[in-house]
């Protein structure tokens, strides 16, 4: 049943499936229609569903995201594509002040089946304004759910689930993942949308990560294995809520925690992950938990500096080795 496809194709299929199944689902965003989306995610949908269901917008992020909020109030299911997360900064009022607060402020009167899809992260030399991840900004908005699919399979599952949900959800994608390939089984039942997935089991340390850093962490885990350190690699798949139990279960085995994130560390996702896990399983930790994150610098255009700015497999190997120094010592 499984089929190999690109990440963008998995998203494209999910959109197609949901739009076929439900007339109230519609897409909007810059160049999602005729052009098929900057990363091809909406390819073919304009031809199939027409302009009312696939709407090319002006460059008006604040207002077209707000428009999504308004449409959702009436039960439509808007899927807003913000070309990259950098432009979502202009839509934060709609996301933070409207989408999560209207259902609450009205005393629970309104549904908010809004999905905002947007890629974030460091791609290839796009310079500081186009190389951000804003998960920290979005993570501390109560009522906002954040999915961070790292594989085509998860992209398929989570976008389908997000569109079916009546709550506002950000699907945070990644420029460099769109053209990654993987098996997608469109028939198998999806796990709960926010449950973490263990990609690799090892007894020596637990690496908790998400989005593109999953791939980087898995590479590092292979190198670590060659030098005798076995890592468990957990893909959170979601940043709000966070599947604490899966992490705790692994730390029960390994007693060592390394969090790998692409965003900068100060008050970032890793800070929340470590704080949350310290609260839950402090007495399981045999070493101070570690964070690997982007440097505390805006991303430089220069390619060499860019590569040094975010965690690389070698950085993960070094951090893990350091964490595991006392693993064999009695």
């Amino acid at each position, binding site marked *: 049943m499984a089929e190999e496809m690109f990440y963008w194709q998995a998203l494209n299929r999910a959109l197609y499936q949901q739009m076929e199944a439900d007339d109230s689902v519609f897409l909007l965003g810059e160049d999602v229609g005729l052009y098929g989306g900057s990363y091809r995610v909406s390819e073919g949908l304009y031809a199939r569903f027409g302009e009312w269901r696939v709407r090319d917008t002006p460059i008006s992020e604040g207002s077209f995201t707000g428009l999504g909020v308004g449409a959702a109030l009436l039960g439509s299911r808007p899927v807003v594509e913000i070309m990259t997360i950098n432009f979502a900064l202009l839509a934060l009022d709609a996301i933070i002040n409207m989408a999560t607060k209207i259902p609450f402020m009205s005393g629970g009167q309104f549904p908010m089946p809004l999905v905002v899809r947007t890629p974030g992260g460091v791609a290839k030399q796009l310079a500081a304004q186009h190389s951000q991840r804003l998960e920290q900004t979005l993570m501390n908005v109560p009522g906002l759910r954040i999915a961070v699919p790292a594989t085509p399979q998860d992209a398929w599952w989570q976008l389908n689930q997000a569109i079916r949900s009546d709550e506002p959800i950000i699907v945070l994608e990644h420029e460099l993942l769109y053209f990654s390939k993987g098996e997608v089984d469109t028939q198998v039942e999806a796990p709960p949308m926010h449950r973490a997935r263990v990609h690799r089991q090892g007894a020596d340390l637990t690496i908790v990560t998400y989005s593109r850093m999953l791939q980087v962490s898995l590479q590092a885990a292979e190198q670590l294995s060659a030098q005798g350190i076995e890592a468990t690699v957990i893909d959170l798949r979601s940043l709000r809520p966070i599947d604490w139990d899966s992490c705790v279960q692994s730390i029960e085995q390994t*007693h060592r925690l390394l969090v790998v994130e692409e965003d900068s560390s100060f008050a970032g996702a890793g800070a929340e992950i470590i704080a949350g896990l310290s609260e839950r399983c*402090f*007495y*399981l*930790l*045999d*070493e101070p938990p570690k964070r690997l994150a982007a440097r505390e610098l805006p991303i430089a255009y220069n390619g060499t500096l860019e590569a040094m700015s975010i965690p690389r497999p070698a950085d993960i190997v070094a951090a893990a080795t350091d964490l595991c*120094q*006392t*693993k064999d*010592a*009695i």
Partner: protein
Amino acid sequence: MKQPITMPALSDTMETGHLHQWLKQPGDAIKKGQAIAEVESDKAVMEIEAFADGYLQGPLAATDADYKIGETIAWLSDTATDTENNEAIPPASEPQTARPQTAPSTETKTAEAAPLLPTVNAAAASQHKSSPYARGLARDLGISLEHIAPSADGIIHGKQVLAAALAPPQPDLKAGPPYRYKLLTPMHRAVADNMSATLQTPTFRVSSLLDLQPLQEYAKANGFSLSLLLARACALAIKKHPLFNAAYTDAGLALRDRVDVSIAVDVPGGLLTPVLRDMAQKPLADLSADWQKLKQKIARRRLQPEDYQGATFYLSNLGTFPAVSRFDAIVPLGACAILALGAAQKNQAEATLSCDHRVVYGAEAGRFFSTLQNIIKQPEGLTDV
């Protein structure tokens, strides 16, 4: 019927109000909307209004004190004199600055809570840092971190606690006199570990009186050490009874084709077991030279692992202590037996052979002693083989 008058919320940020003064007295008739008291919120001084008609009833809360929002500060009843037993104003709220006497001190609180903690206050007792996991384990297993040595990074990790949990019970020193710790030297620790490792060996002991006089004379005459001659004698006996050169392993008996005898040596702060190789074959003169070299190395603290590991048989001689008539020794791992020699009395010294019962049996030990006695009767035979 009476209802409580409570500290009202007078601003968006107010949490407590400071009661300035009462504007009415108990028994006063009050109209709805009338001011009954003056309160200072975090923003301003304001009046508390009555929300119903009635009569003010005591007890009134003390003025010049802070009260939490919702806390009862007085009562309103519908009759002028209230016969009901006035409940006292509950000092339920947490300590207020103006009422320190009601505050249970935090110290007493923790003192009360203390017995609920595990009896071993694990973290506090160790002079080393310990990881949370180590502390958690120690708490759950009821182990004191005090006796646990840290790992190389100076921190006690879970591994060390688990090892301690599996280790034999530690003495409870608290019951005895005050004490302090002297850390184990590596040699001391190694000896301790080696000895503990032999606990699994089922051992039996057989003793024999040996006539050492011929041996002593021969040693004196030729400038050999008595221990060396005795070791040589044992090696020759082993050649006749090769099981004494075997080692028990799970895979089977390890039969060794060379006899390497170790002689226990007393050194300051411990015990060393230098090994003489090929004790049954080598010319005695060479062995004597080897022995001298080993002793020099010991004196200069230059003994290497290859100098003290791998013996197939051990000899421990306390004959230099006249007070010792007999003793028995522990069979080290990797050997079948060890011979322990006491001090000679009237030329006779009592030797005790401790044997691994998984390798040899009592009768074998009897035969070994017979052979040994014969060998030491004719020391000349020790030279050439």
